[in-house]
């Protein structure tokens, strides 16, 4: 989870990503951030988040996003 929080912090240093639960709904993460985030996640974790998974359900909180990364990693295995 730490690397993910670091990536998120790089994008928005003023946001507390451990608490926010409406990142996409409240416009904290915008489309630019999402693409940057997907690229950085691929570099860090080696998984590609497919376009169909870019939804509020997966991107509204760091926890939900990390759960998605874990699921994708398990699928790869």
């Amino acid at each position, binding site marked *: 989870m730490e690397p993910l929080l670091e990536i998120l912090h790089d994008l928005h240093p003023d946001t507390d990503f451990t608490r926010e639960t409406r990142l996409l709904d409240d416009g904290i993460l915008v489309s630019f951030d999402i*693409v940057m985030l997907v*690229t950085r996640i691929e570099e860090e974790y080696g998984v590609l988040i497919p*376009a169909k998974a870019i939804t509020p359900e997966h991107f509204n909180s760091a926890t939900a996003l990390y759960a998605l990364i874990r699921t994708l990693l398990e699928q790869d295995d």
Partner: protein
Amino acid sequence: MQFTSWAFLLFLAVLLPVYYLVPKRMQWIVLLLFDALFVCAAGTLGAVFMLVTIGTVYGAARWIDALFFRQRSRIAAMKQTHTKEERKRERLRFEAKRRRVLIGCLVVNVGILFALKYGAAIGRLSATLFHTRAFGSELMLTMGISFYTFSTVGYLIDVYRETIPAEKNPFRLALFVSFFPLLVQGPICRFLDLKNDLFTPHAFSDERFLKGSLRIAWGYWKKLIVADRLLVAVKALCARPDVYRGGVVLLEMLLYAACLYADFTGGIDITIGIGEWLGIGIPENFRRPYFSKGIAEYWRRWHITLGEWFRTYVYYPLSVSKPMRALSTKLRRLGTGVSRRVPVYLATMLVWALTGAWHGSNPTFLVWGLLNGAVILLSEECKPLYARFHRRFPRLTKSAFYRGFTVIRTVLLLSSLRLLDCYSTVGDAFSAFGSMFTTWNWNLVLFGGIQSLGLKWTDYLVAGAGVLLMFAVSMLQRKGPVRERILRRGPVIGVCAILLLVGTVLVFGRYGFGFDAGQFIYNRF
């Protein structure tokens, strides 16, 4: 059939009692029949194109669904007898089949839209290049095709992505595609957002009826008192780019900003209100867009459903696609900053080029789209600079004055870009914009000039009062929906508010109610 016609009001007056009097399980069928009437009234050619869309998308979605089912059965059967690699190959084979079905259907439907939007422009180009007779006509662009094609394509992609299963009943899909309130100017809806409300039985509710009526009355108020009035002046200004220059162009920009807001949001108010009458929740398309502090924020608050559509079905798939990632990897030697930015930049510019192209075949729309994309990217690059400025002047940047400045700056920037929508050529738009800085004619703007635009002083006073009321309502909306607050005071207050709105429309509505009201501006897209 326009929202602002007597025929449409009669259409609603017949639909509503029938909708609530028939057995509830038949409601969606009644709605479908009225949709068919609405579509046919707009022209048989439009009905034919819509039938082609319904037929092809229904067939393709069912086919894709069947391929998913066959894939699962096949892979399950292979589990004991085949290796992981072989199963993967089989899965990829099915994926390729599904992709072919999807692309085939997209080519047909986007092709129809493209041919209708660009047919006339291609015809003119071919006539110029090859000295042949021009073919095609702008009149071929049929009612709501831009809106329902996007909604339907969204549905098909959702089935392809397994976000939703394919609809088994073609008539239900037909209802989604042809749902009449959405055909005038959207919003662009997703099947999964509408399907429950469209097919669930609804009992009549006084409360919902009142709520919908208030929204509809407010929509007509904005359209007939403000938009149609200001449009007369805007059209007069746009028609003579050689005459109206300098300060008049600034006036034109502001009049068009108010006019377009009243027109588009007014139409969406009517659409959402009709949805409430029928018990069908239609998504909001605006969130007080003129209060945005930047252009990117504005586009998240104006025509929300179109922006979401492009983000979901074009921007994200493109920016995380294999070729884009490969390009990004190749560019790593130029630095991570460059390689990470390239997908974002390319996808943004392509989406904005498409957004411009969606609005029409005139090159002005393409330039408008590309300029929007460029400004968004530029402001994104300036973010660190803004952050430094905010850190350096924290008291100033948190003040109401600074917030007001950023809002006015955004409105002026967007209004400048919209000049491309006002003029028929890119050159005229740029020349008009430039003249604001070179031609000093404020006496013409303030004394006499605006009286020659087809409106009287009283018209400007009424429109000005209308704009002030829209502004006041937007300010009040910051603390929650105004409508809910009115209706919370009781149904009598609600009815009085509706009567007041209808009364003022009857007195001040442009040309009188329903006489010669114009079509909604966004209907031409």
